[in-house]
């Protein structure tokens, strides 16, 4: 059943990588085209490139025994090119490897994985908490007032654990839920 020999899959991988390079060379992959000039709109339109500086906000699910205070991070977003679908990469700013979102961005919505490392440090929020996340972020993308894309009403499905600075993972609570709230707002 697994018919693709090593050379074939290597070739297919090379083709996809070439596609990434091609897409990047064509000016990026966001499904909404190049960034237009800022034009504030009274009603938000779908789309807009996810690029530049953002604030990621996570509110634990109502089913979690955690404070429902938003947990926020300063992030930087960028077009991640096209593999089989167009993607975006949103990283903690700085130390992007500590909190990374890799998501498909098409049909005016994102869907992808938001994760921290598995070490005792997690990622430190703007509130000074340590946070561990392994979850799927999804939501519609709307044009912000500066025409970039942002997610105002997203969801985060998966693992969320909190601790004080220097505390053990989960000492302030651990919760796996399909409906944490997420937003990714321009800043």
């Amino acid at each position, binding site marked *: *059943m697994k018919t693709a020999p090593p050379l074939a899959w290597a070739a297919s991988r090379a083709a996809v990588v070439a596609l990434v390079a091609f897409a990047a060379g064509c000016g990026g992959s966001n499904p909404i085209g190049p960034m237009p000039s800022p034009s504030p709109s009274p009603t938000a339109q779908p789309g807009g490139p996810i690029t530049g500086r953002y604030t990621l906000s996570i509110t634990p699910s109502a089913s979690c*025994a955690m404070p429902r205070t938003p947990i926020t991070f300063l992030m930087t977003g960028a077009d991640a090119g096209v593999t089989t679908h167009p993607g975006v990469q949103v990283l903690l700013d700085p130390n992007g490897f*500590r909190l990374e979102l*890799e998501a*498909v961005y098409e049909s005016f919505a994102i869907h*992808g994985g938001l994760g921290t490392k598995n070490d005792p440090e997690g990622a430190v929020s703007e509130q000074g908490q340590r946070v561990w996340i*392994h979850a*799927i972020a999804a939501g519609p993308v709307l044009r912000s007032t500066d025409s970039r894309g942002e997610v105002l009403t997203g969801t985060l499905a998966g693992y969320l654990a909190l601790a004080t600075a220097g505390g053990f993972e989960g000492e302030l*609570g651990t919760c796996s839920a399909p409906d944490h709230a997420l937003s990714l707002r321009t800043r």
Partner: protein
Amino acid sequence: MTRFRALPVAGAALLLVGQADVRPSAAAAPEPVRVRASAAFAACLAPALDSVARGAGVPVVLVTADPDPPQDADLVIGDDLEMTRLLESGTAEVASAVDLGQIPWVTVVPEGSPRGAVSAFATEPVAVLAGRAGREARASLGALGAGRLAVTDDPGALRRARYGLMPRSLAGPGERRASDVRPLVATAALIANSPRRASAARLLARLASTDGRRALGTCFDPMPQASAQASASAAAVYAQSVVDWWMPACSLARNRYVDPNEALGPPDAINLGGQGENYLGFISLGQGGYVTVDMGVTFADANGPDVRVYQTVSGAGEPVTLYASTLPQGPFTLVGLRVPCGERSPGLFSNHCDFDLRAGGLAAARYLKVEDGEIFPCLAAGSVTEGADIDAVELLGGRN
């Protein structure tokens, strides 16, 4: 023959008193093998390791600490959640990995406590194990907010706790109640390029032998005899074709096994051995990547699990998320979110995890979207097999 040493690092709180009896002699004594095991397993290993080490003719130092990072260890012993990245990165040798047994979680409460969830009646904080090995246990106590949990890596504190959720090996007095939390699986593996590899391999072989398992048996439960043999019958239904797939460009550039067609057909992943990570027969999904497959038939929800996903490489259970639909383009409904995919599959290199359509409220499906649930940052990747590694997808029943 065994010496015990505690490390001055977070997570290494079990202080085992040294009992060195490596006798100096004129002939150069073999250098001790350094065994590094997490607290739950060290509590079991400590009493048994001495006789095992004598049998193997290998002096041993046991360090109680999270096996990852291994520091100067030659042999590491940890649960799936602790071993995944060690094995996937090649730091520990996948080919050497052996399951020594498992330890169930128990809820400890004062004798005569009410029935039901401990969160409903605990009058003081509920102690629970810190670190990766305790993740699923802590998540199971999600109803307890800050202040009602006492997360600790101190085995003494766990044993003293009146209320707690801990591996049986770390439970103190009080009434012990069975827990639904997945048992910890003690997987032992050699550290690659260890300077004492031959001695460590001898020790591991002894640990895994009948005598070794007997010595450990009072503390470890045997691994269950899973009914997970992949079906070889002609009626078995495996994924037929790839409808869609995606992985981030970052993961695509770093992972080595990126052909989605490898998720089709029966499980056939193999470890080719040798240096590095040499495998065949699966796709590593990368950070949050997915592959959507057509099972070739519409299948109905049946009693029990309907779908089995075979997940491979590390001998561990990278989580998998499954969505299902009757149409190739969806919409896809969530069936299982980040399900640990480490159930052992006898006779196979791959492990597996099962899903029930009913959990997603679905009566039938044909197309399955299998998504990475590990969700480890691509930029922090340490292997060429990042993300869940999908070998095969099988229908278990309910075909129509």
